[in-house]
């Protein structure tokens, strides 16, 4: 169907074009972060007891002697060439640190998303299928606790029980996946469970709500009147809803989980990008703060784009 394809292509193009201004504004926000510092950014960037030569060098690199818009242009130019400056703390290029540390963070988030789906989807579907049953009440209570639980506190409980008392998992640290996949997954297990506390809660809640709505819709009532059982209706007509709802929630969760790694990585001493941001914030390491925050925003924007593309595949209504 060439007609349908062209609609789809047009939709993708529009979506890509929409992402451009968002990206531009995001770079501006990251750039402007530095100008929130009280006083002269050059002095803030130079750290303690700067020499005049050092200050001049910083002014030149960041273009601080130029007007605001020129500074932004320079920042963009550097960012486009994968240069986000150097960490004031380690002296390493920020991009190098991000590229090195990002895999730890992404492993935990991906693992947590899979866990959330694996547990949240069956429970959400089961609760919707037996609305008002004891199982439904249990799932609903579990999800309202899950969205409210401080996930890093849950992480501490997990460490206390499964690492310190039972010794099943390491309490802290992380192993590169490329060197030792099994070890990497083992150290990522507890952090991922901690993140999936709100992940599975959100999936259960939204999936249950979406399916309950489908099951009470007029067309399902017709199907039921024709003699179809709830179970077969759920299988045949609910599944597409499951896919779309889960996709929407994943978009939301991906963003929230990436953010939550800032705290969860601190609990487990994982050297990921979340730890980088938390440490940079404590050390006032401005280029690192800017770079890491920017990297996460880029990833989220890319993920949202990917999800929108998947939508057009899953939901025929989107292309209409």
């Amino acid at each position, binding site marked *: 169907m060439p007609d349908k394809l062209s609609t789809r292509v047009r939709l993708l193009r529009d979506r890509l074009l929409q992402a451009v*201004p*968002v990206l531009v504004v995001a770079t501006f926000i990251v750039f402007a*972060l530095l100008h929130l510092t009280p006083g002269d950014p050059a002095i803030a960037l130079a750290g303690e007891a700067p020499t005049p030569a050092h200050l001049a060098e910083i002014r030149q690199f960041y273009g601080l002697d130029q007007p605001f818009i020129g500074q932004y242009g320079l920042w963009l130019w550097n960012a486009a060439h994968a240069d986000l400056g150097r960490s004031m703390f380690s002296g390493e290029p920020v991009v190098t640190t991000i590229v090195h540390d990002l895999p730890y963070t992404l492993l935990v988030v991906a693992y947590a998303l899979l866990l959330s789906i694996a547990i949240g989807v069956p429970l959400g579907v089961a609760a919707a299928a037996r609305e008002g049953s004891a199982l439904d009440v249990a799932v609903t209570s579990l999800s309202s606790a899950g969205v409210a*639980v401080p996930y890093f506190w849950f992480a*501490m409980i997990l460490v206390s029980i499964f690492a310190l008392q039972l010794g099943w998992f390491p309490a802290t640290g992380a192993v590169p996946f490329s060197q030792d996949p099994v070890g990497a997954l083992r150290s990522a297990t507890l952090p991922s469970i901690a993140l999936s506390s709100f992940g599975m809660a959100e999936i259960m809640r939204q999936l249950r709500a979406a399916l309950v709505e489908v099951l009470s819709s007029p067309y399902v009532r017709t199907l039921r009147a024709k003699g179809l059982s709830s179970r077969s209706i759920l299988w045949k007509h609910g599944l597409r809803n499951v896919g779309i709802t889960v996709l929407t929630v994943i978009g939301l969760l991906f963003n929230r989980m990436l953010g939550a790694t800032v705290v969860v990585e601190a609990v487990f001493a994982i050297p990921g990008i979340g730890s980088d941001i938390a440490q940079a914030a404590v050390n006032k390491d401005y280029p690192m*703060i800017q770079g890491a925050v920017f990297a996460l925003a880029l990833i989220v924007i890319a993920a949202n784009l990917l999800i929108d593309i998947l939508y057009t595949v899953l939901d025929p209504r989107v292309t209409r």
Partner: protein
Amino acid sequence: MTWLRSDRRAMVSLAFLVILIGVALLAPVVSPYAPNEQDLSATLEPASAAHLLGTDDLGRDTLSRLIWGARSSLYASILAVLIAVLIGVPVGLAAGLGGKWADIGISRTIDALLSFPAITLAVGVTGVLGVGLTNGMIAVGITFSPQLARLVRSRTLVGRGELYVDAARVYNASPLRIALRHVLPNAMPPVIVQISLLLAGALLAEAALSFLGLGVQPPTASWGAMLARAYNYMDVAPAQMYPPGVAVLLTAMAFNALGESMRSLLDPMARR
């Protein structure tokens, strides 16, 4: 108020919050010890008659710190949400009423801000502004504001087409008057729901920031700061992490339950 009588969960939540706020306000009267009173001969003690929830690593009474911590934690949440409202509501109104280009500009900025994981941006902004509870909560408020702005914008787009708004325009009411007197009141109910949900989010954010050492500074007690200390002594006194954690959990659940109950009240379709 018949609404509360019909929704037991919301009533229990409201009662819990009222008691919590009362306890927080009366902290000097109700807490058994001063929050920073140290007893280095009784550190990390388990629960006892003298210390109902035990003591922390400096021998400070955990129950007293929990009560005083409620003050900082609630103050922080309210401050963050207040800032989010003060930024988000006017910006949302401006997007909805300010014409096409204002709308496009503001909407893209909202989209961009929402692409930053909220906690990450809050941690980053706190790092730049300087650590401390007030700076931390300003940062959280800023990161929460786009959600409110988006909500107010969409309600404003609906509201501005209403007949009474057209009527006001015919009577030459100023744009500000139209925004504040005719559009805003109708946008408020969902905003109030969102405020309740955001209070839960802000409470978790305070706990997270203070846990990272970016929020409340020692010796002030907050639930997040208590969790951070308990974390450091987790292998010797694991029980110390439960009181502040449970306090955050219950309070966040109460804010959420209240918000959801109000939402289903506003949207009868969602009531079940």
